[in-house]
């Protein structure tokens, strides 16, 4: 079909319009998505995008309409297609208004335009627009996945409140303005909430302003505890201070005279917490000797929800031993920062134990204290106590006064330290003395070591050498045995009655049995048949008879074991091999000595003194049979909720349950108490119960299921107590059993 020139131009104009409009839409679409994404990131309302849409629409329409008219198309043709010889304008003019030459030229142009029409490529930026659209769309999709939140306390708090809130007001309440004024020290300031549900710091003063769309009177704010605040004034305002989470609802009397109420709204009060102190990489117990590095670097990380106002170290130096232990307490400030402030503080302190006056044998106990900026009084928190012990290896006398109050250790035998000194001296003099003298002195040292072992063994309960009987074999040693017997008689306590002698033999036999138990298990059938032995407390067993607590006893046993080795090497004339054992013995004894210093105040029952004249008389005249009647039943914490669960079960199953309303009303009381503790969890339960109670004629099963679910979670599990299982029994069975067991 052949068209005239004007038709071609109009076709081109339409095509140009389409291209321009498409590219405009693509540009606008990209910007639209990007704007939406930015609004989402910054937590702004999507309504802000409406002006953008309007402006962009106007610009787009005006821009497209401006460039898509016939004149523009003609100008483009004249410029880019010389074949038209700049005569395309003639096509827009009516033929009767043209001269003859112009008509001829018009005809010629029209023919040429028809020829070149398929080749005309109108200008456009569609690829660019598409690329921009895709790019912006990608950015809009990816951007929200990054956390670009500006770390602004106020914004965080505001967004938290928005999450907590988002409840709608009743239709009659046109607005409910909530203004929260937090204590000054929190730095939270004063905020106007957009939602009736809000979160605020502890001690905040909340002010409400309620306005109604219609007439309202007798307006109240009803709080969780049953408190009511009359909303006074023309603008219906009220205020209250909060120290714990709560909830409230607005109650008013409408035009119809009925008292109406809003849903429940939660008030989430975040308590001001005490500072938290973390001390990383510092052992609670540190033992150092004088030769070690005596300066410690202490790092403490202190955080608080508002601000750390003060932080310091309380150090106690413990000096002395026995009953002359002295304590000195000092308050040390951190080296950096001296005056802490801010939510998080990284404090450093260099502790030099020498500067604190510690001497070998002394101990340092310290803990870190931090306080916050709470008004009127700060909250303090402290760490556990850390111990630094400066070891003293010079004094090795074992002190047990911490347990018994008296020092039982005699002074007139060689201490381990003395044996070490003598052993070292003997080794130094080895080259200058005769071999016989060397051996003799080594043997004497072995004897001293043995005496020391026996002495400690006595404290451990080894009253006799029950374990060493089999090791004494050589004649020389037997000679020593005689001396040892004297020594044990001298230092130990000897039982001279037969009964005790017999008693002391038993452990030896038991020990022997233990040695041979595996090989001769068949020989001990009697013992196996008498399992009660396992339960006897044998007082004359060396394992049981001791002055020491378990940990000391274990270490003392280890020391005694090492003393055996040390003595062996000395008796083999090898004091150089004995010395390592002796050093270890010394260290263990020192640890035990230090342990005995720890003083713990004894608490407990002070039994009344037994009358001596009644002791062991067997008089039971005052011991009488008694009868006691008690109630042991533990009432459930939420009895009404438990009862309501049962009733709800029946109601959900479709039964008509008249007591449902009363049961829910009672359960609501328990739920409201729970909602005070955890409003986010149970407030909606309360609202659901209220909605059921408000319209009892149209109770929906799904609401009942929701209530039942929450009540079950509220009641929580309890410890199951077993009872009788149920069993069917035929009467014939009973008769049979009766005949069977007359």
């Amino acid at each position, binding site marked *: 079909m052949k068209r005239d020139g004007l038709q071609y131009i109009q076709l081109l104009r339409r095509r140009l319009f389409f291209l321009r409009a498409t590219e405009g839409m693509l540009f606008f679409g990209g910007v639209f998505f990007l704007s939406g994404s930015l609004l989402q990131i910054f937590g702004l309302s999507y309504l802000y995008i409406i002006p953008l849409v309007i402006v962009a629409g106007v610009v787009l329409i005006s821009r497209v309409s401006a460039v898509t008219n016939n004149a523009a198309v003609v100008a483009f043709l004249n410029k880019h297609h010389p074949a038209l010889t700049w005569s395309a304008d003639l096509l827009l003019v009516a033929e009767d208004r043209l001269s003859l030459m112009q008509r001829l030229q018009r005809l010629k142009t029209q023919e040429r335009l028809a020829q070149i029409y398929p080749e005309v490529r109108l200008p456009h930026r569609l690829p660019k627009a598409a690329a921009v659209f895709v790019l912006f769309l990608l950015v809009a999709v990816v951007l929200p996945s990054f956390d670009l939140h500006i770390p602004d306390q106020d914004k965080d708090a505001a967004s938290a409140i928005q999450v907590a809130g988002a409840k709608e007001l009743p239709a009659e309440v046109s607005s409910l303005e909530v203004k929260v004024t937090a204590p000054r020290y929190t730095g939270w300031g004063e905020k106007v909430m957009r939602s009736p549900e809000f979160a605020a710091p502890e001690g905040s003063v909340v002010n409400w302003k309620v306005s109604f769309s219609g007439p309202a009177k007798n307006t109240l704010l009803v709080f969780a505890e049953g408190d009511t605040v009359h909303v006074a004034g023309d603008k219906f305002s009220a205020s209250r201070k909060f120290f714990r989470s709560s909830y409230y609802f607005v109650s008013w009397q409408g035009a119809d005279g009925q008292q109406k109420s809003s849903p429940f709204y939660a008030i989430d009060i975040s308590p001001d917490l005490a500072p938290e102190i973390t001390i990383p990489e510092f052992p609670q117990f540190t033992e150092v000797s004088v030769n070690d590095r005596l300066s410690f670097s202490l790092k403490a990380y202190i955080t608080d929800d508002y601000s750390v106002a003060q932080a310091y170290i309380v150090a106690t130096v413990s000096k002395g031993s026995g009953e002359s232990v002295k304590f000195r307490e000092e308050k040390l400030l951190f080296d950096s920062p001296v005056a802490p402030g801010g939510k998080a503080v990284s404090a450093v302190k260099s502790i030099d134990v020498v500067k604190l006056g510690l001497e070998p044998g002394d101990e340092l106990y310290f803990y870190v204290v931090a306080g916050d900026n709470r008004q009127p009084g700060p909250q303090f928190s402290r760490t556990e106590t850390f111990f630094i012990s400066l070891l003293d290896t010079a004094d090795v006398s074992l002190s047990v006064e911490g347990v018994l109050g008296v020092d039982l250790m005699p002074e007139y035998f060689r201490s381990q330290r003395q044996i070490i000194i003598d052993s070292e001296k003997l080794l130094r003099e080895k080259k200058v003395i005769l071999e016989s003298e060397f051996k003799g002195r080594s043997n004497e040292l072995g004897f001293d070591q043995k005496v020391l072992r026996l002495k400690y063994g006595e404290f451990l309960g080894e009253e006799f050498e029950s374990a060493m009987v089999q090791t004494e074999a050589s004649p020389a040693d037997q000679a020593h045995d005689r001396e040892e017997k004297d020594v044990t008689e001298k230092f130990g306590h000897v039982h001279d009655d037969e009964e005790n002698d017999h008693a002391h033999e038993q452990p030896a036999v038991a020990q022997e049995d233990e040695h041979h138990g595996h090989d001769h298990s068949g020989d001990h059938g009697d013992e196996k048949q008498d399992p009660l032995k396992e339960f006897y407390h044998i007082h004359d067993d060396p394992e049981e008879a001791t002055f020491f607590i378990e940990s000391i006893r274990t270490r003392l046993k280890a020391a005694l074991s090492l003393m055996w080795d040390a003595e062996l090497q000395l008796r083999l004339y090898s004091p150089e091999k004995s010395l390592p054992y002796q050093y270890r013995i010394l260290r263990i004894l020192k640890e035990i000595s230090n342990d005995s210093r720890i003083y713990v105040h004894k608490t407990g029952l002070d039994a009344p003194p037994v009358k001596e004249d009644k002791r062991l008389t067997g008089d039971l005249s005052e*011991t009488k049979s008694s009868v006691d009647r008690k109630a042991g039943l533990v009432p459930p914490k939420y009895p009404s909720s438990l009862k309501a669960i049962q009733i709800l079960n029946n109601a959900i199953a479709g039964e008509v349950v008249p007591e449902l309303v009363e049961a829910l009303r009672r359960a609501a009381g328990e739920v409201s108490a729970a909602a005070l503790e955890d409003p986010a969890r149970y407030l909606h339960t309360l609202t659901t119960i209220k909605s059921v109670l408000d319209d009892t004629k149209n109770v929906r099963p799904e609401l009942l299921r929701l209530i039942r679910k929450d009540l079950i979670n509220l009641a929580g599990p309890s410890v199951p107590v077993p009872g009788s299982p*149920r069993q069917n029994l035929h009467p014939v069975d009973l008769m049979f059993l009766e005949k069977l067991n007359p």
Partner: protein
Amino acid sequence: MWEYLRFSGPFPFLAVVMPLFILSLLVLWFETKRDGRFQPLKLAAVLLVAIGAAGIFLRPLYKGTSSRDYVLLTQGTDEAVVDSLKKIHSAIRFLNAAPDRFTETTRIASWHELEEKGKRIRFVVGHGLPEHATAFIKSDFTFMKSSPPGGVVSISLPGEMYPDEKIEVSGLLRGSGTQPVVLILEGPAGREDSLVVYGAGATRFTLRFRAQQPGRYLYKLLVRTDAGSSVVGNLPATVEERQPIDVIILQSYPSFELQFLKQYLGTMHRVFVRSQLSKGRFRTEYLNGAEGDVNLTKAVMERAELVITDAETINSLSPEESRVLLQGVRNGLGLILLPGGQPDTKIRNWPQPFTLIPVKKDTVMIGAGKQRVSIKTAPFRLSGEALIETGLLNGVQGYRYEGTGRIGVQLATGTFPLILRGDSAIYSSLWYPLIKSVTRPAYGNKVIVTSRFPHFPGEPLNFRFLSSGTSPELYFDSVHIPLREDANIDGLWQGTVWPSRDGWHQLLSVPDSSRTDIFVSSPGEWQALEHEFRRSITSLRGSAEGVRPKGADVWVEVNPLIFYLLLLSGCAALWLIPKLA
């Protein structure tokens, strides 16, 4: 000839044949008299007319062989199997019990329709029939199973459920193995338990939940795969209220172990505690209104459900008290022996209750994960063939029967620190199974539903119960149910109800007003489980070997159209042949 041919026309054979024969002879005679061409054709045309007319009036039938047997198509039928059966047994007929499939076959709306055709069903194809429908098939048949159903193919619910008790639901899941399957158990309070099942084939699973209150609950079992979630079915849980029992605690001297056990049991039950202070002097405590004589008498033993003591204390009883206690146990009383001061369980003049094996280990671990704690035990473990062990603690606790009662033993000696530590749940898990196993049962006549779970609307639900009455009355949703007494056992009554709708139903026994809750699942639930059960039930009734379909003689009518066409063509020939001449 008449053996193979019959006539079903309205006229007698001779009344038709004789006139036609005479007429044909006359026509033939006239035709032979007339000269003309195509004479044989004319004679043939006359014969055709005569045969056609005879056939139309006589309506002949011939004897043939046809199958009277049926193939019953059930849910899950494979079309290839149907095609094969059609090829092999071309005459066999099909009954269709699979909805929306095989529309060309004869559909049955109810299994009761099989009652009529049950003798002639030779094949059952698909997942099979429900239990009650198999009774309608009275012939031998071949069961051609379809492939096993996937999903939950077995489920077992505990018989009795009590508040706060750990209730276990176990079952079998048949998975495809291509993707993991998540089994979720949801209760009224939300999700209770879940587990992931990997791999193909049948996997046993156990899900646990606790119900806190007595009542009727529905727990939902869901299956979640990559394709999405689907509800397998509702699990009914009737949680019964626990009744307080009478517990007697006897001790030679007060101990912490029994003190805490007394407090634990006293939170629900009536507890009577007798502690010996010295010879002839006792301290007696009654908790929650417990009553009883200080002395152990037959009446006290009959009233109590459980006695907790140790062998040492029993040995210190008077011979009469010891005898009464043993007699009480034999009559159903539960007795739990503790190690006491001496871990020996030998009791004078009593049969040896347990065999104890000395062990070196005097502790046992209980709990799981971070809750795992060590508990002190006597250095013995239980042994013996009569011993039935309970709980997790292998050899630490157990019981055996003595008459109708049970004697249990608890070798854990240091359980009370669990309470002090706040591990009440572990303490309960330690004592709960033993006490529950040993305590004298509460005898009652509860209705027992003998039909397996799940029950569906329109299917029979069988039950039985014991009643000493001559005519007990039972109501199903307030509808009186006829009962029949067992022919062999007196007092055992049986009945059947047909629930018409899904949901909860109730059986009410009039004599003692005891109620039994029954849940009827909706037809869409527990599909795989129902198919699996049908497969097993039908397999038991059917045969894996081929059953030959039986043939039957039938009289087949010759199509009258043939005779009409013969008559028409004969008449046409008689009209046309003269024209040709």
